């Protein structure tokens, strides 16, 4: 099979671009610590509200500069509907759903997860600045899907956090 010179050049450039993109991916996940939610355990959706840690949703301090937000999605709200976290700390979001699929997207960040019945979703994020972010359910979950949202309020580091 004869391959034209221009074609070889075109394909070579294409491959270089693809490989460069993949290197950038590896760099971002290793150096900047951008990870995906992975396997974080399973839970029976009907038992969520009486299984720790989901029996007490809220924000808890887990270390000197580490917090965990325990959250539940259900048609059509989040529990708690509003959470308070400090800027500059590592926040682990641990969430699940009691009914159908929901989305868990904190607007303006890369914190983006699916909530799937039977599975626990978990990922980490550090808010650099104080401010307010919408927490949006971005997976269709029935007639009231567009009513389902929450708020993440980021407070300046060192100030006391209101109860979530």
């Amino acid at each position: 099979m004869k391959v034209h010179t221009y074609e070889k050049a075109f394909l070579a450039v294409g491959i270089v671009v693809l490989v460069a993109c993949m290197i950038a991916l590896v760099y971002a996940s290793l150096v900047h610590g951008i990870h995906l939610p992975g396997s974080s355990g399973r839970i029976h959706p009907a038992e969520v509200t009486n299984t720790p840690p989901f029996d007490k949703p809220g924000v808890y301090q887990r270390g000197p500069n580490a917090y965990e937000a325990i959250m539940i999605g259900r048609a059509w709200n989040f529990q708690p509907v509003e959470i308070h976290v400090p800027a500059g700390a590592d926040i682990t979001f641990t969430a699940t759903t009691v009914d159908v699929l929901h989305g868990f997207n904190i607007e303006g960040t890369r914190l983006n997860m699916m909530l799937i019945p039977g599975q626990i979703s978990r990922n980490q994020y550090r808010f650099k600045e104080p401010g307010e972010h919408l927490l949006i359910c971005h997976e269709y979950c029935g007639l009231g899907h567009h009513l389902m949202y929450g708020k993440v309020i980021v407070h300046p580091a060192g100030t006391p956090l209101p109860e979530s």
Partner: protein
Amino acid sequence: MARLTSIVLDPNGYDLPDHQRRVLRWTIYIGYAALVAGVFHGLANALSYAGITILGWFPGLRTYYQGLTAHGVANVLIFTFSFGNAFLPLLTARALARPLNTGLLWSSLIALVVGNILTIYAVVSNQATVLYTSYAPLQAHWTYYLGLALVVVSTWLALANMLVALVGWKKEHRGDRIPLLAYISVTSYVMWLLASLPIAVEFLVFLLPWSLGIREHVDPLLTRTLFWFTGHAIVYAWLLPAYVSWYALIPRQVGGALISDSYTRIVWILFLLLSIPVGFHHQYVDPGISNGLKAMHGVLTFGVFFPSLATAFSVMAALEIGGRRAGGKGLFGWVGKLPWGNPSVTAQILAMLTFVLGGATGLVNASFTMNQVIHNTAWVPGHFHMTVGSAVALTLMGVAFWLIPYLTRRALFSRKLALASAWIYTIGVLIFARGMIAGGLDGMPRRTFLAEAAYSNPAWRLDGIVTGIGGTMMFTGVMLFFIVIGLTIVAGRREGAPRDIPVSQTLTAPAKHGWELALDRIGVWSIVAIVLILIAYGPFLLGYRIIPISPGFRLF
């Protein structure tokens, strides 16, 4: 110009018997009717992003999400597969110069029609407002799952028809290379056969018995994974018939030639191998799937980008040959010499150009770091309206401008109106995607009735208006298309219709001996594809403990 080789057995023409053409024609009509029906809901969805609700004007449509389900099902499932079911067997028959099997032809059409009736019943009666992805545990009426399963069965019957023709041809032509047009048509649906098996399992083993009450619970992560097992390859099942047109027909329509026979076959083998083992890139942010597997699917997704890169070169080269033969000079002089007055060509070139942006945004989706910024935001429909919504839809509209006249033996009703529909649609989709992509980057969610959402963000306002304007233009383009095609069918002139399918020639002929003969072993390549699929999905399927935990929810 070098000696050219035809991509079909008999370059002088071959006509299917009239009764078989009629079945194919009606199959195609179902597809284009689904396109037109689906865009009404598309318009309502796009306007919702601009804050305008027109749902009250739709008789029999209760909610935004019911419309969105109808839009997805009609435009990406019924439209595309009805087209493929008719187009690919038609081209296979043309390539091999032999008739199709009448029994299979009818059973494929009947499966499609019955599937359509069941699905339409479920969607219109608001018993299947689960969107086209039908994620459990949202539960639709059983007619929805059975209807869509029958649509899949219709594609298998269409493939069976092509394989019968191919086997019959092989018996009479031992040792000959498969004519290229037949090769790419058949391989497209062979890929889809492999790809469709997981969704068949999802529907027939899990969701259908569950909706009938035979099963009480399902495992939502398993059914979702089975969906995306099929769900990325399905986009190639929509795209490959468009690629068949770009490779095998467009070169002829622009007076050019396809550069290489072997190269084309390799592209199709790469699609057969790489389209399927990439589904986890739709589930990057899902819990319960290991990050190692997600990364592996990410790399393979970059791999399946390669045959599309190769296509970009091959198709552009064919266009350039045509443009230069028509007297085009200089680096880009040939572009102006292309037959821009031919709506079939113009629509498809515009589809190719839009697809460049669709491909680039697709690379962002495939990159698991950036994916977290845009997953399930408006970015994603912004992206796929430049792939399935243009590379596929616009190409299929362009094909209709010769195919409907060919099948009805009536000339195209109005060339100018046809051209206008392609341009308006293209400009519309670019504006629409600009709005959706910008909105997505600002966190605007997809699949959400934003016009009445409980929350909003001032940044989405302009993005939504742009989306609404673009969507309205896309709708206008499809309506013009509908008028042109409808009037062609009922009022087109009896003379002047194309008498043959525009089949191309290649510059480099198929090799008579050597390694290239192995390219024709579609069965062997399918086995290689299955091995790759098992490597990509085996670790998950073997390690996953199915726990049926979810009863059905009908929250619509």
